[in-house]
């Protein structure tokens, strides 16, 4: 399992340090190369510099939120196709309808999913 993901890299974007930290730890344990960012602005720089295979993206963040970040990123040719998982605790109608507008992204509520399940979803998505 770990060998499969050896060269795969992932960008974790979340403003909550504890959440970002545990995700980073979990993905590292699973053999991913992990990059992190604490808001959308920072995430764009890290993403364009490192071109990760996947982005796990929070939505509600200071400076630049997840939607703004992704819209910005999609101006880049590579950014158009990078798979994204929105991992958020916002479940308002606006958030969901906005999230599904991004065809490259899927939407998961944080409290609905455990760490193992997140890793499973990421691997499934990468295998596609």
């Amino acid at each position: 399992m770990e060998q499969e993901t050896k060269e795969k890299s992932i960008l974790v974007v979340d403003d909550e340090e504890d959440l970002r930290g545990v995700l980073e730890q979990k993905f590292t344990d699973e053999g991913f190369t992990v990059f992190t960012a604490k808001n959308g602005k920072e995430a764009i720089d890290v993403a364009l510099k490192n071109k990760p295979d996947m982005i796990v993206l929070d939505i509600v963040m200071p400076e630049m939120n997840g939607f703004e970040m992704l819209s910005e990123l999609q101006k880049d040719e590579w950014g158009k196709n990078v798979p994204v998982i929105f991992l958020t605790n916002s479940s308002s109608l606006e958030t969901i309808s906005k999230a599904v507008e991004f065809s490259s992204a899927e939407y998961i509520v944080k409290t609905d999913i455990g760490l193992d399940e997140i890793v499973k979803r990421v691997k499934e998505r990468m295998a596609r």
Partner: protein
Amino acid sequence: MDQTVESKPRSRVVAGLYVFLLTLIVAGAGIWYIQNIFIQNSSRPEILLSNVALILYTSWLITAIAAGLVTYLWLTRREQAVALAEQMSGGVLSYFQPFQQLYDESPMPYFMLDASGVIERPNKAAARFFGAPNEAECEGKNLYEFLIEDGKSKNAVPLRTKLERGVPINKQEAQIRTLSGEMRWIQLTVFVMERLGEHRRVGLAALVDITQEKEMDRMKTEFVSLASHQLRTPLTTVKWQIDYLRTSKKFAWNEEVSTYLEKIHHGNERMIELVNTLLNVSRIEMGTLQVKPEDTDIVKLFEDVIEEVRPSLDQKHIRLVTTFAPACVAHTDQNLLRIVIQNLMTNAARYTPEAGEVHATVTCSRENVEVAVADTGCGIPPEAQSHIFTKMYRAENAVKMVAQGTGLGLYMSHAFIETLGGSIGFVSEVGKGTTFTVTLPLHKKQ
């Protein structure tokens, strides 16, 4: 008042005397004229005069007296009738006057409403409420012009239907836009009355402005929604850290630590579930429930839920009997349906005593799927049955048996199933058990 009553007989006597004298003069002149004719034509006027004059002068006097008397009596009679009528109408008026005043001056908007929705005789408060400068400007306007028939005021259509059919309307809520463009929530009551002498139905309508209550309600709901969202972040922090401790191969916890970790995990999951319930309830109330229908294998969904609740069934040695149709796919929202089945199964496990039985059934017909959960639990008392889907209601025997519970599960389930175009019902007997049945269309009709 006394003076006029006293002066009346005198005026009647004067009128009688006047007529008497008038008749005396007129009749006297007539008699004098007739007498003259007789005297001129007669050969012996003196004989004639004595006989005829006696008759003539007697009847002259009688006629005058009779005319005076008749006048007096006629006037007396007429005055009595007028007095009586005045007395009666004065009474009726003084009886109704306070009501009229109450209607006109009441702070409650009142108006008459005909079957086509036309507003008649609005009181001051009604005119003010509809944003008209005075009652006259409000008169003749149609109530339907004010009604906003958007999704939130589904009531607008039945209101119209009810009025057309002449059904009384009891505290029906609707949203309106006043003439000044303000949005208001109203609670309308219409007493249907038949107007005398006319073949059209008119009702007396009373309005209560519930805009403020609605606004408070919305704020409360929004607060719950906001607070719940805020709670999710720390809950996620706890969830994922515990998850990491529980699942990472790095740690080799002894059994004792693992047990504590599991307990923290379960406590946190319960909290998450509670927050999700609060969020769902606020969504129901704000009308922002998200429905995403997709082909759903009902049996698979039910089996997943059974796996989740199996520990609580096993703990009480409750026997689970399942009767599932071989295949049943419905086009519905599986997240909402899952919550409903979870609720029914959790309730069955919760309110069924040790070594009881729970029957789970999925039946599939050509048009519908029927999901049933039957338990041998405490049952719902007859007096509680009509309230069982009410928000935050819990039957007394349920509270006695299990202290904890929000009273939101069945309220939520009922709202979800209605949103999905289905129905939920139950049969129950105290001490024997309860069977909840959910019927859903395989394809929701639009």
